[in-house]
């Protein structure tokens, strides 16, 4: 590699780092003060990019249009942030973290479909920045002028933020709130206004990042999710709540990205997450963050109500129906039922973690996907018989869960979630880029059941046995002393430790069991579809079971299959009538979080008691 090439790569890494810094600093700031992990941050970034595109085209200002459009778009997004904070987030500051996450995730879905609605799903090419359109020679190579301008702008923004934080009263309050929220509240500061202003500033920074990105890349519908994962990595690596940390981490990640593509093109996706995983393991609070004042274990206050039990006659009736009814159903419905069964087990396995254990995993797709790939690889490369491959699925997932779970259970709530996400993304990147073995994004095809199990009814009963049996086993686990102990550790970790419970060991075992059954669900699913793709390990696949568990009701294991059934039916029906399924799902989520936080079983249970 020639020195000039290294310089060029370094510069382009720095240019990307500056955009990353804008977004990540806003995200970090919002987390530092409000403790909200704002998934919608990437959506604000995307929204600003599209707004800049439209404003530049419509403002009658000639060459100045772009330069007016950028601050205007960023300000509009800041304003949108104001609306979101006042109308939605303000209601959930006291709710368990999980509900806050789901609310911002719902916004991601709603904004994504909104962008699709207004701007369409074709890629759009943004305008060039007038006056900065060309390239300049740097060490004998051409480098985009605009990127140089970005590199210059980054430190200016950082300096402006520094001035804001260290030279204004508002900044002092923000720094104080980041360190000790309660104390600032006690001092008589109007917290509501502080939170709102921080959220607006954070959104504005995301908007600025998005607006400035327009000349650099085509506008797509997925730019929200691609940037948000990267921004999270930056925030976690830098230290959540630390703006200088965000700057440092943005430079590190930006440069690693730029050189990663050069040195190890096939591992470029995975590198960022490896960095995050290593940081989380070695220094969970990030490069420049501070350790939380009161470290917690992986568990958290997600479940605040006592466990809910579904009456036995109801269960027996459901099981009887599941056995008797399918032969009279149309084939399509039987296939839908199989899919529901697979997801019911997938959601139930997550319930063991988040409901019983209080450990919210953002990477449970890993178990599903690793199970699916485990089975598919057995079929493709070992020519294993179908039932052997199906049995391999949960084992593969459990072994992997044992490996990465060992590190995950060492972390507290949000860091636990982030590390599970990191490992799922690493698994995703590996299957996505290891073409020779996994087929990359072409996936693996032709993973069909044995002939005698290939008919809809035969496969249905196999799925009922594997998934229904899996759920029954999970029910036993949750009711056994092991499940009771997990609930105790979730309710009060220090107390559990002082009655002789090795919490990490229990949580690790729960992680492995959840991985096992998630893998079984993935194995059942792969033979239903006949193929496997990296999508099975992607973020949406981790979010679906989370939504299902909450939809059904997190206080009972039975909530998971109920939620899976309702979710999948809605999905099947809604996608038939509308292209905007994400919008529907987002609206459901918002309703769930704000109106029915205890899910379907919770509502039904309350009715019966009343």
């Amino acid at each position, binding site marked *: 590699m020639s020195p000039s090439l290294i310089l060029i790569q370094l510069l382009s890494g720095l240019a990307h780092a500056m955009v990353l810094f804008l977004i990540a600093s806003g995200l970090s700031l919002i987390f530092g003060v409000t403790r909200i992990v704002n998934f919608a941050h990437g959506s604000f970034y995307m929204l600003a990019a599209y707004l800049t595109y439209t404003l530049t085209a419509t403002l009658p200002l000639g060459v100045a249009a772009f330069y007016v459009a950028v601050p205007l778009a960023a300000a509009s997004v800041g304003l949108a942030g104001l609306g979101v904070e006042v109308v939605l987030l303000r209601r959930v500051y006291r709710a368990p973290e999980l509900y806050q996450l789901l609310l911002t995730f719902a916004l991601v879905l709603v904004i994504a479909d909104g962008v699709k609605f207004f701007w369409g799903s074709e890629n759009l090419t943004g305008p060039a920045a007038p006056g900065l359109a060309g390239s300049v020679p740097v060490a004998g190579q051409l480098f985009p002028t605009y990127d140089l301008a970005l590199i210059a702008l980054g430190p200016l923004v950082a300096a402006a933020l520094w001035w804001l934080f260290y030279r204004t009263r508002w900044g002092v309050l923000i720094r104080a709130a980041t360190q000790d929220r309660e104390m600032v509240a006690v001092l008589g500061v109007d917290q509501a206004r502080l939170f709102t202003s921080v959220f607006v500033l954070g959104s504005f920074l995301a908007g600025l990042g998005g607006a400035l990105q327009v000349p650099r890349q085509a506008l797509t519908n997925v730019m929200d999710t691609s940037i948000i994962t990267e921004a999270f990595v930056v925030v976690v690596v830098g230290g959540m709540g630390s703006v200088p940390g965000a700057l440092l981490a943005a430079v590190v990640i930006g440069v690693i990205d730029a050189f990663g593509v050069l040195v190890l093109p096939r591992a470029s996706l995975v590198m960022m997450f490896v960095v995050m995983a290593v940081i989380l393991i070695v220094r969970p609070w990030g490069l420049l963050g501070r350790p939380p004042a009161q470290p917690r274990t992986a568990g958290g206050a997600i479940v605040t109500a006592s466990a809910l039990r579904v009456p036995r006659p109801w269960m027996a009736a459901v099981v009887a129906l599941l056995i008797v009814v399918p032969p009279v159903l149309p084939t399509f419905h039987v296939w839908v039922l199989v899919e529901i069964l697979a997801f019911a087990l997938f959601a139930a396995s997550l319930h063991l973690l988040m409901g019983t254990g209080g450990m919210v995993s953002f990477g449970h797709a890993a178990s599903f996907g690793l199970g699916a790939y485990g089975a598919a690889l057995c079929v493709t490369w070992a020519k294993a018989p179908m039932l052997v491959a199906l049995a391999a699925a949960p084992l593969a997932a459990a072994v992997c869960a044992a490996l990465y779970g060992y590190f995950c259970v060492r972390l507290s709530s949000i860091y636990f979630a982030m590390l599970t996400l990191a490992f799922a993304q690493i698994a995703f990147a590996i299957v996505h880029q290891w073409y020779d073995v996994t087929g990359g994004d072409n996936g693996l095809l032709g993973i069909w059941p044995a002939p005698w199990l290939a008919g809809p009814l035969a496969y249905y009963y196999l799925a009922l046995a594997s998934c229904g049996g899996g759920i029954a086993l999970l029910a036993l686990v949750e009711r056994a002393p092991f499940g*009771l102990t997990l609930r*105790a550790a979730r309710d009060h970790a220090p107390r559990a430790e002082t009655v002789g419970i090795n919490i990490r060991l229990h949580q690790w075992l729960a992680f492995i069991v959840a991985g096992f059954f998630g893998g079984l669900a993935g194995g059942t699913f792969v033979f239903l579809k006949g193929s496997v793709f990296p999508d099975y390990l992607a973020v949406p696949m981790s979010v679906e079971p989370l939504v299902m568990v909450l939809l059904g009701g997190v206080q009972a294991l039975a909530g998971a299959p109920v939620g899976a059934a309702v979710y999948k039916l809605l999905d099947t029906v809604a996608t038939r009538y509308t292209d905007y399924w994400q919008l529907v799902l987002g609206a459901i989520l918002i309703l769930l979080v704000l109106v029915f936080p205890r899910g379907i079983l919770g509502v039904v249970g309350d009715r019966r008691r009343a």
Partner: protein
Amino acid sequence: MPEPLLRVRDVRKAFGGVRAVDGVSFDLARGEIRALIGPNGAGKSTFFNILAGQLRADGGAVAYRGEQILGLAPYVIWRRGVSRTFQITATFATLSALENVRVARLSHTGDSRMLRRPADGLEVERSLALLEQVGLADQAVRPAGVLAYGDLKKLELAIALANDPELLLLDEPTAGMAPAERGALMALTASIARERTLTVLFTEHDMDVVFAIAGRIMVLHQGRVIADGAPDEVRADPEVQAVYLGEEAWTT
């Protein structure tokens, strides 16, 4: 002289520049009920958290039945027979009172990872007996989250007794309770301790309680033990009086 149950030597812990616990040493004999008192910020809770494993000490040694326990994880210390309660009641809110005790019992019998049987049928008698002993049998099926404060304190005591401990550490067992209830709870604690020949070390702000129960009192001030002796000796100690001067509690 028989070997003490607990032998504490020169235990130290600093937070930044603040020496919260600054060289504490003492012996605790079997069957003793001893109070550890001192003004707010004297280092009592810090010291308790070090003993029970919640905090790591900067230095020193703690031998329990002749074995070092300093630096062990809280769950290991509990399994050796040292149990504790917390200043702010710590119970499992979504579990019933019975389940709260059952979790601890199952942990004690080594069954907390058992999978083959539902927990509901296990350790019922022993758990109920413990609830009975603290006077909570009629609350057995109610979730801890809805129990009255006084009942939570009793529940915590029942949980702490579940491993048949030899040494019981009580961190302000009556904090937050009405004065009338305090005496009753401590009388109950003392009678259980005598019945089971437990050794008890407790911190407490209510001097009525301290003098009614403790056979011996230690005074902690700025991380150091400044007095250690029978209640009357400690009461007469000029240094102790100076430390407590103006503190209302001492007027009893």
